[in-house]
């Protein structure tokens, strides 16, 4: 059960991240693949500003989201892949909340210090702060998803 849910979670994360990096490749291929690429860019424009100078480039084309978002999603996928090795699929205890709060605080600071003109964030600071929050999130979302699946399939036991 846990393995199946984990594999679904991994597949969705993989597909979401793959589309980000495949868009520039399809774009350079031309023809029909380029049309698919257009739709991938439009799709991700809902989730990201896609500014060229703030994005990673692959074979001369920007990827479908900015460097911060790319790092969030790549860090997320990386963490989902490592989850069974770090926590074990059956261990669904969540890490302390302050991990999530600290990671969010880094990202929020990076954004607001830049907006306030106190510290100009860089490509590296955006990628690192995004990567950290992306890496941390699955440790809270995977247990939640598995608990949800147990409730749906009536196999859930709660400590009261």
């Amino acid at each position, binding site marked *: 059960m846990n393995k199946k849910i984990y594999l679904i979670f991994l597949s969705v994360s993989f597909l979401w991240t793959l589309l980000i990096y495949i868009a520039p490749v399809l774009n350079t291929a031309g023809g029909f693949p380029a049309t698919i690429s257009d739709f991938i860019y439009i799709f991700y424009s809902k989730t990201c500003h896609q500014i060229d100078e703030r994005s990673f480039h692959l074979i001369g084309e920007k990827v479908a989201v900015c460097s911060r978002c790319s790092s969030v999603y790549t860090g997320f996928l990386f963490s989902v892949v490592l989850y069974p090795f770090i926590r074990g699929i059956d261990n669904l205890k969540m890490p302390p909340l302050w991990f999530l709060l600290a990671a969010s605080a880094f990202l929020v600071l990076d954004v607001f210090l830049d907006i306030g003109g106190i510290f100009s964030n860089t490509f590296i600071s955006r990628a690192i702060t995004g990567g950290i929050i992306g890496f941390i999130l699955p440790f809270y979302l995977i247990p939640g*998803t598995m608990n949800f699946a147990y409730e749906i399939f009536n196999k859930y036991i*709660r400590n009261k």
Partner: protein
Amino acid sequence: MTENTGVNRLSSVIAGSTVMIALSILPIINFINLFFCSGIIAGGFFGVLSLNRQMRRADTLLTYKDGFLTGVLSGFLAAVTVSGINIISLIYSSVNPISEAMQFFGNYLNSMPPEMVNQLKQLENDFNTQGYSVTLILFTFLSNLLIFPLFGAAGGLLATSIILRNKSTLPPDS
């Protein structure tokens, strides 16, 4: 959707979707969604907090199913509403968003593959002749229907996981 326990799940869904809609359409504030849809995640999160508050008053326990469904349904309601508002504003606006986007890209447009430029020009023509583009409207609606419930569910599950972090124990793999 009001149970005999006094918990109104619909009001939590509406609360969550209201946050999503506000954070998606209000100028300047909607920039929050450019950070991996944080506004949508926040809406799902808020919907679950609202449901949990009601459940605590009614002395019932929040479940992961409640959290997930509140996030998904808030996202679904927000996706339909935001798409509707976008479509209406597109139809009544005299601005051609594709022309604006092409101006924004500027010189970068020259380095784009010709197929992509042709695609953009076709969409631009649709707007010039009809005032809207059916392709773009349909695609926007469908992508909203996917993105809002997905990130809403993530927000809902995140909130539930945090609220129940010391209360859940699952059976080992079965």
